[in-house]
């Protein structure tokens, strides 16, 4: 079952276009939205969470068009924003009161147990928190009301490895029952490489790849070759070429390349680099 589905979503800005975005988040999986800064990750997320209105296309949540959702249905979409969106002047106790009146399924006990787990001070205003603490708080908020999918916009950027790992651990807990899904956008590809089942790679407002992560990592490889060999290769094998002063690097489809060529396994980071800097054949 598809929890969230985007169909041909377009959004035009003066200097940037989101073109025909279609992908879906199946039940029980983690989908990673990868792309360099400005590729359109946030725009996609904002269109799912109702913060912007796409020019055309449709977005569905459990088969229902997203504009027609009631308040309680919309709250089934959990959201964690990169800048948290929480009122920074408040302290945690007041925040609890505010959110209790906003979310129809708010669990104060759950919220407080997360706050205690992270050792967050309850009487200090949120603006005095470090970036990591703010993100932990935003996750605690998203985990304290009943939702079926969690949408996270750059949750790990700017955080130290320990906090990042804690956040990943919470996300694993969230998907334990196999019914809930996660959409996570990030340019820190190592986090996504661990957690995600599917990868949607976005480049200049267009989806370049939408595949199971393991398949991407298996299908492609990076080859270092000499210029003159390039002509002898199967054109269909070559995805992108990155020319260096001394030789060139290829992002290629492994099974179409000669078997005796040396290669190294591809990483998501490579894919980003090849697409943004590399050239076509």
């Amino acid at each position, binding site marked *: 079952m598809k929890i969230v589905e985007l169909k041909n979503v377009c959004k035009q800005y003066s200097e940037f276009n989101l073109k025909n975005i279609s992908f879906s988040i199946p039940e*029980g*999986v*983690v989908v990673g939205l990868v792309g360099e800064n400005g590729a359109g990750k946030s725009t996609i997320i904002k269109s799912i969470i109702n913060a912007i209105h796409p020019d055309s296309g449709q977005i569905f949540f459990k088969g229902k068009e997203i504009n027609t959702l009631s308040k309680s249905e919309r709250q089934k979409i959990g959201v964690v924003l990169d800048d948290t969106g929480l009122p920074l002047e408040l302290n945690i106790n007041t925040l609890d009161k505010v959110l209790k009146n906003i979310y129809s399924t708010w669990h104060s006990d759950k919220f407080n147990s997360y706050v205690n787990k992270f050792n967050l001070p309850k009487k200090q205003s949120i603006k005095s928190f470090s970036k990591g603490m703010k993100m932990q708080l935003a996750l605690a908020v998203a985990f304290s009301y009943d939702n079926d999918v969690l949408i996270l916009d750059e949750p790990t950027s700017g955080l130290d490895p320990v906090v990042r*790992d804690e956040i*990943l*651990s919470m996300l*694993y*807990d969230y*998907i*334990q029952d*196999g019914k809930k899904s996660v959409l996570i956008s990030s340019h820190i590809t190592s986090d996504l490489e*661990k*957690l*995600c*089942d*599917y990868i949607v790679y976005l480049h200049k407002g267009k989806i370049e790849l939408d595949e*199971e*992560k*393991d398949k991407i*990592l*298996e299908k492609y490889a990076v080859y270092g070759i000499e210029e003159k060999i390039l002509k002898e290769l199967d054109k269909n094998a070559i995805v992108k070429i990155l020319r260096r002063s001394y030789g060139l690097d290829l992002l290629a489809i492994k099974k179409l390349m000669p078997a005796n060529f040396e290669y190294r*396994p591809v990483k998501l980071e490579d894919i980003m680099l090849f697409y943004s800097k590399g050239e076509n054949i």
Partner: protein
Amino acid sequence: MNIFISNTSDKSLYEQIYEQIKNMILDSTLKEGQALPTIRGLAKDLRISVITTARAYADLERDGYIYSVVGKGSFVAEKNKEFIREKNLAEMEECISKASDLAKRCNISEEEFINCVKLIYRG
């Protein structure tokens, strides 16, 4: 049970999990009927994706090492001695065929090759 994942290994993650669990079953570190960790629990522990783990489990099940009960999880299958022997035999044949290829390439005679095998077998 202990599983270790290497990011620098040539083998993909699911192959590594498959191999390690298989070996633990073959050398009886994992006993018959013993419950394996849940797919999602193992994924969390190893910090890898759910699909990767699920694929390793699916392959283990396909090859008869484990079985799963809906709603209860996965368990080590009853050891089928014949089956395991066959598996090991196949693996052994593969190793020998590699060795004999190498021998042919270096012009090592059949006799020499067999002597070598005998020597190694007897330890």
